[in-house]
C-alpha cells in the first residue's frame, strides 16, 4: 500500500515537471517568434533604406553615368548606350544588393515597350535588373537619359526625361 502511494506521488511529480518544461518551451517559442519577426522587420527596413539611398546615387555610378560624354559633366544623367549594354549583363545581378532596377522613359512617352536590340532606342522601359522576387515599394528619382543621335549629317546629343526605379526584396514572408 505504501509503495503504491509512493509511485503515485512520483507520477504526479513527473507530470508536474513535464508541464513546467512544456511551459518553458512554449514561452521560449513565443519569445523566439517575436524576435524572428523583429529581425525580419529590421532586414526589410534596412533593405528599404538601402534602395532609398541608392536611387539618389546609382545614376552617378560608372556603369550608368554620362560622365563627360555629352558635353559638360551632369548629375543624375544616365548614358542610354551603356544602360542597354548593362541590361544584357548577368554579372551585375547581385552587384547593387537590390531586387529590381528599372528605367522608364517619361518624355517622350514610349509606353511599356521593353527595350532590346531590335527596338532600341524607340522603347519605354529598360529592365536593368529583375530578380523576379516579391519586392518592396519602388524608390524613384528623375534622371536624364542621354544618347548620341544623328540626322544623317551631324551627330548630336539627345537627352530625354526618365525615372529610375529601384526596389529591394521583401523578406517579411
Amino acid at each position, binding site marked *: 500500500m505504501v509503495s503504491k502511494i*509512493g509511485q503515485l*506521488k*512520483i507520477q504526479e*511529480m513527473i507530470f508536474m*515537471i513535464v508541464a*513546467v*518544461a512544456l511551459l*518553458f518551451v512554449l514561452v*521560449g517559442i513565443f*519569445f523566439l517568434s517575436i*524576435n524572428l519577426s523583429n*529581425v525580419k522587420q*529590421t532586414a526589410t527596413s*534596412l533593405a528599404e*533604406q*538601402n534602395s532609398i*539611398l*541608392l536611387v*539618389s*546615387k546609382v545614376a*552617378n*555610378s*560608372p*556603369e550608368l*553615368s554620362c*560622365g*563627360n*560624354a555629352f558635353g559638360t*559633366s551632369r*548629375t543624375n544623367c544616365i*548614358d542610354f*548606350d*551603356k544602360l*542597354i*549594354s*548593362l541590361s544584357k*549583363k548577368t*554579372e*551585375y545581378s*547581385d*552587384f*547593387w*544588393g537590390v531586387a529590381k532596377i528599372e528605367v522608364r522613359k517619361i518624355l517622350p512617352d514610349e509606353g511599356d515597350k521593353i527595350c532590346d536590340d531590335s527596338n532600341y532606342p524607340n522603347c519605354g522601359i529598360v529592365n536593368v535588373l529583375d530578380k523576379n522576387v516579391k519586392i518592396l515599394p519602388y524608390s524613384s528619382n528623375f534622371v536624364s537619359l542621354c544618347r*548620341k*543621335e*544623328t540626322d544623317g549629317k551631324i*551627330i548630336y546629343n539627345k537627352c530625354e526625361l526618365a525615372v529610375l526605379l529601384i526596389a529591394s526584396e521583401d523578406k517579411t514572408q
Partner: protein
Amino acid sequence: MEKKGALEISFGWLFAIIAGIVIIFLAIYLSSKLINVQQTTISAETGQQIGILLDPLETSFESAQTTSITIPTETRINNICDPSGTFGEQYIQLDQESFNKWIKTNINVGFLNKYLFSERQVQGKKFYIFSKPFNFPFKIADLMYITSSDVRYCFFNSPDEITTEISQLNQSNLIVGNCSVGDIKICFGDSTCDINVDFNSNSVDKNGTSVYFGGADESALMYAAIFSDKNVYECQVKRLMSRLNEISSLYVDKELLTEKKGCDNNAGADLSELSSLARELNNSGDLEIVKMKADVVDGDNNARMCLLW
C-alpha cells in the same frame, strides 16, 4: 533508540531537486545562448547599417567627401576583402564590447559595390570615412577610407595639393604639419616616418613593406595605401581591376552602338587590351603596366568625335 542518518530525503524530494537543477541549468544555458544571438543580430544590423550609410558617400563631381559614424558601444570593425568572383566582395564584421568583454560574431555583411580601405581591424566608437573617386582612365569606383577618431594621422612635408585637400576635408584625426607624439607620421620624400610616400616610385612604405599606387588621380590609391593594411590594399586593388574589366566591356559595347550613328571606332582594341591587363594583375606592382595602357585608352577617347566617357 532508533539511529537516523544525518539527512533523510525521500525519493520524491530527491527527484524534484535533480529535475529542478536540470530545468534551471537549461534555462540559464538557453538565456545565455539567446543573449549571444541577440548580440550577433545587433552586430549584423550595425554592419549592414554602416554599409548602407556609405551609399551617400558615392561621389558625382566631388573630388572628396567625408562623414563620421558614431556607434554607442566600443566596436572593432574588421575589414575583410575577398578577391574571388566577378567583382570580389567587401565584408564588414563587427565585434562589440559588452560588460568589458569582446563579443565576436561570425556574421560577415557583404557588399559587391564597396571598396573600404583601412587596417585589418579598426577600433573605436567614432569612425571617420572619407571617399575619393578612382579613375583609371574612366571612373571605376569610389574608394572609402575608414579611420578611428582615436588614431591621428599627421601629414608631414606633403605636396601642396595633398595639404589643401586634407585641410579642406576638416577631419579632426587628419593633421597637416604640427605632429604630436603618438601621431602616425606620414612623410613625403623621406624614409624616417611611420609611413613613407615616394612619388618617384609611386610607392608607400609601411611596417617594412611596400605597396604601389597609380591611377589618373594618383592620390586616391595613395591614401588607400596609407590607411590600409597591405593585404586589404592588394585585395581591393585586384577587385578594382575586376571592375575595370567589366566597365571596359560596357565601353566596347557602347563604341559599337555609337559607331552606327557615325562615331569613330578607335578605342575598342585598346580597351580590350586594358581589360586583359587588368584581369591579369597579380599585385599593385603591376599597376604601372596597366597605367601605361590606361593612358593610351584615355588618349583614344580624347581623340574621338564622340567621347565614350
